[in-house]
């Protein structure tokens, strides 16, 4: 479904990989190896060489906002553009009903962003990125700040998206999580992307 070819930026690349619908692929590697760089290239957030296609349609031939609505990047430390939690979500969704899915009380809808803990921010940033239009999610350490119970909730949410046909490329330092979630495992090392056999 998604195919990346000859991606190159700074010390990373050229690298390529493919993702099928409903498939989760994990990405590991040392800090600074270029994992986030890879995800950001796929989301077309940084200038880069090479191209990515989604069902054969190249990213370079598409308006960036349209591409990013389908191929959506969630940063490890995502930003907030309003003081209120609810302002970050589309008005057409029932946020209070969604929040318990990630272990956050429904009344957080009315909270200011400043009241959220690191882990709550991380889960809300993920929830905010889940839209009907996404075909591919690029997740940068989606559970790094979470306790095991909340990690389980997030993984369940991601599994539901996978079952619905969304593909996920996930940076994770947790090899057990990679084994639970992903069918293929990639490692970024020395500017290259290798497939790990497990």
């Amino acid at each position, binding site marked *: 479904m998604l195919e990346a070819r000859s991606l190159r930026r700074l010390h990373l690349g050229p690298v390529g990989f493919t993702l099928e619908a409903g498939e989760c692929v994990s990405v590991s590697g040392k800090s600074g190896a270029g994992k986030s760089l890879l995800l950001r290239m796929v989301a077309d*957030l940084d200038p880069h060489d090479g191209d990515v296609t989604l069902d054969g349609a190249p990213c370079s031939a598409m308006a960036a906002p349209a591409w990013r*609505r389908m191929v959506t*990047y969630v*940063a490890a430390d*995502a*930003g*907030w553009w309003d003081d209120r939690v609810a302002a970050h979500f589309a008005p057409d969704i029932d946020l209070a009903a969604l929040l318990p899915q990630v272990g956050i009380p429904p009344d957080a809808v009315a909270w200011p962003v400043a009241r959220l803990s690191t882990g709550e921010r991380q889960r809300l940033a993920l929830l905010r*990125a889940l839209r009907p*239009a996404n075909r591919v999610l690029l997740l940068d350490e989606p559970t790094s700040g979470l306790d095991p119970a909340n990690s389980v909730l997030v993984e369940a949410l991601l599994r539901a998206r996978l079952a619905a046909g969304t593909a996920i490329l996930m940076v994770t330092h947790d090899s057990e999580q990679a084994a639970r979630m992903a069918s293929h495992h990639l490692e970024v090392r020395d500017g290259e992307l290798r497939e790990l056999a497990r």
Partner: protein
Amino acid sequence: MSPTLLGYGDLAIAALLIVLNAALSLWLDLGLTRTVLVAAARAVVQLLLVGLVLRTVFALASPLLIGAVLLVMLLSASYEIASRQERRFAGFWAYGIGAATTMLATVLVTAFALAGTLRPDPWYAPQVLVPLAGIILGNVMNGVSVSLNAFNTAVVRERPAIEARLALGADRYAALKPCSAARCAAA
């Protein structure tokens, strides 16, 4: 318009103010005495040179020469705007954005003042046009450099928020909303 003439007495008063500032710096141990005096000396030399050039320009009253003087003023204002930015745009726009906005605002406002209120004859009379453009240009330059610096600083500070919106598929205008006037003012 009758020109206002300044005598040596007036100049002495202006010079006294600078000496006063230098004395204050000495008294309060601000370490600015040398800077103030050197800047004042430079200003005197620069103004003498500008005066020489303007005397020729005023005497010749050639539209081409006046145009050249205005162009030099615009270019140096654009350079000054760029040099006042802590963060600049990349490439051409480092200077281009300041130059374009300054030129547009200065030309428009000067044209309104010339055509509406002052109506000199000829319309390009240098005694009117050069000081008028200079006053407007000075104000525009300050306004542009302050607001551009506030915008650039806000973009850097709000980078995670802007990127979050871009990553979710917002276009650049929506993503830059946090840097619009309201938040810039707080910068």
